[in-house]
């Protein structure tokens, strides 16, 4: 009996938050995700006070990642994710797969915070995606609206010199 208890503890530790997941269940309660400068509404999440779980199909529009057989990938960046068993980053509930966006953020040392009362999750930058700027001085790309609401991308001006200037009315 004692041996079984120990095994349970070890299993719970090795699976990270899976033990706490016992209480979590699929939810129709929508959440709002603030990512880069986007506001993304997500209809389906797992109820979990500590983490944001979404279905893999929603992942690309939430944080740009795509769940592939080799893992969660953003361009050349891939974080391995086992998908034949539950882990802190991936679980299957009633046949539905769920991906833990906040666990991925922790793995990547990406800052995030949440307003739990209003179910809003807000994410900062992923440090590893910043090395081209921080080490090689390559200009970070962005797309922002002009006054007509059309999005303009910095990289559209490749081949020209660009003076990029921030200002504000305040």
């Amino acid at each position: 009996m004692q041996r079984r208890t120990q095994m349970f503890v070890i299993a719970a530790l090795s699976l990270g938050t899976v033990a706490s997941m016992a209480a979590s269940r699929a939810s129709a309660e929508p959440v709002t995700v603030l990512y880069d400068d986007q506001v993304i509404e997500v209809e389906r999440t797992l109820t979990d006070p500590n983490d944001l779980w979404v279905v893999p199909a929603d992942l690309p529009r939430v944080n740009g990642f795509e769940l592939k057989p080799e893992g969660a990938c953003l361009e050349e960046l891939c974080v391995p994710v086992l998908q034949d068993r539950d882990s802190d980053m991936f679980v299957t509930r009633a046949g539905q797969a769920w991906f833990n966006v906040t666990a991925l953020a922790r793995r990547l040392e990406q800052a995030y915070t949440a307003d739990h009362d209003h179910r809003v999750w807000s994410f900062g930058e992923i440090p590893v995606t910043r090395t081209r700027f921080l080490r090689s001085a390559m200009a970070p790309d962005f797309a922002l609206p002009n006054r007509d609401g059309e999005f303009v991308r910095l990289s559209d001006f490749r081949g020209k010199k660009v003076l990029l200037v921030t200002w504000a009315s305040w």
Partner: protein
Amino acid sequence: MKDQNFEIIAVAEDTLGEAAAGEWYDAANPTYTALIDTTHRVSSLYNFVNVPSAAWIDEEGRVVRLNEGTYSQVISLGQASFGTDEYRPAVVDWVTNGADSPYVWSQEQVVGKIRRRTSDEALAEPNFKLGVYFYERDEALARTYWERAQALSPDSWNFHRQDWNLTEGLGGPQYRAKRGALGDKDYYAPLELGAAEPR
């Protein structure tokens, strides 16, 4: 300078978007690219902490110079003449001479000039964004998150000034108090446009 393959991109760091920046752009009737940035995305990406700030980006997308607040005295949107009288000739020199301009920095110099963020400063960003999100829904809640961002990143003038502007008006007492606390210390990086400046 347009025909010399040169473009100015002006980015308004304004949470209220067109409502705040629009009349300035109207008055300027700009020939440059005028963009609206409600979440201060560009400041976040380039680690800027105040406006106006600038990056010079070459044809290959490489940053060859970074300046924070270089043109603190003069910002004339109308003639696209960002900067002080000292700054403008430097830009013209770069547009004309490209990599041979003495104002172009080496990769090592640019990398050395990029502000590095602490983990607290990194956490300030998502808090600031929560404030932006809540501003039109619940102003008191927005302030809570902005104050949290300010506490995490006390050096970010963007976070302070955007907040104070929306809650107490332009150049209000809190702004003046923080500015005054600096004394003679400029909150922008020094100009560094001297002739002796190393390449």
